[in-house]
């Protein structure tokens, strides 16, 4: 499978955030609320990762609710690709 690295996912996340006129901070511990990154933005990012890898990424909402920081997003998607 064509798996994206954490850095590649970060680039895609930066694009999603940039499209909304914001900048993705370098600090992985940034709270998602600070950059207004919501569940639909997460969905958009996951679908971009899907596009790049050709693999569907499905997940439950409880997993999503535990995500609070930029680093959490990257870890979650990196892990999800491996499942």
């Amino acid at each position, binding site marked *: 499978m064509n798996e994206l690295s954490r850095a590649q996912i970060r680039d895609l996340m930066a694009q999603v955030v940039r499209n909304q006129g914001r900048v993705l901070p370098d600090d992985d511990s940034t709270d998602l609320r600070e950059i207004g990154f919501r*569940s639909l933005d997460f*969905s958009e990012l*996951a*679908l971009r990762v899907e596009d790049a890898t050709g693999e569907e990424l*499905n*997940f*439950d*909402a*409880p997993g*999503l609710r535990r995500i609070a920081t930029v680093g959490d997003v990257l870890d979650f998607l990196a892990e999800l690709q491996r499942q």
Partner: protein
Amino acid sequence: MSDSPPVPASTVVLVSGGSRGLGLAIVTDLLDAGLTVAAFARTVTPELEKLADAYPDRVHVGAVDVTDLAAAQRFLRAVEARFGPVDGLVNNAAVGQDSMHTHTATADIARIVETNLTAPLQLTRLVARRMLGQGRRGRIVNVTSICAQRGFPGLVAYSATKGGMDAATRSLARELGGRMLVNAVAPGFFASEMSAVLGSTQLDQIVRRTPTGHLTEPAEVVPVVRMLLCAHTNINGQVIVVDGAASI
């Protein structure tokens, strides 16, 4: 249309998903009320087993997957062989959901629709055929949900199935022309294995928006189910919401 006599109270009731949560509460309540009850789920829990031991002459339990039509039919025949005709059905078994529609696997959508919509329609057909074929009258209660009437994120396929059952309730009530009373009970969120996926923030939010100030309890739903199965009323084709006015 000619005058038809009232549909009598149910005496032998089949409850799908009677092993825990609301289903188990319904089974317990109907037994307390003196009815004979047949209940199934994929796994028979110790709680359901205990009821079967406590009321050996009035309870029939079994491990049946509601999506397995042949198994459901075998169960129904076994119940009839033991207790006589089934004249009440509670379509309670269902699976929940907590995932964005875009990220719910297609197989999961199919499973939700099959369990919550196709299977109860098939079970209803089976039971209604038995009742009609024997010239009997009876009652059907579909357990749906407030999700059929109000939008909730993470519950798209689930809501669609519950809305489908609400719609089927109305058409069945018309089609079965007074031979059967067909109604639905639509609870608000209550604590159970199904709703355990909801976060505490979501549950707090629901409670804050509920004028009665608490989540619906199964004990607050079962009297409505019993009334629809047993009381002499002219309620037919209705969806009764039990949610403390949270959705009003």
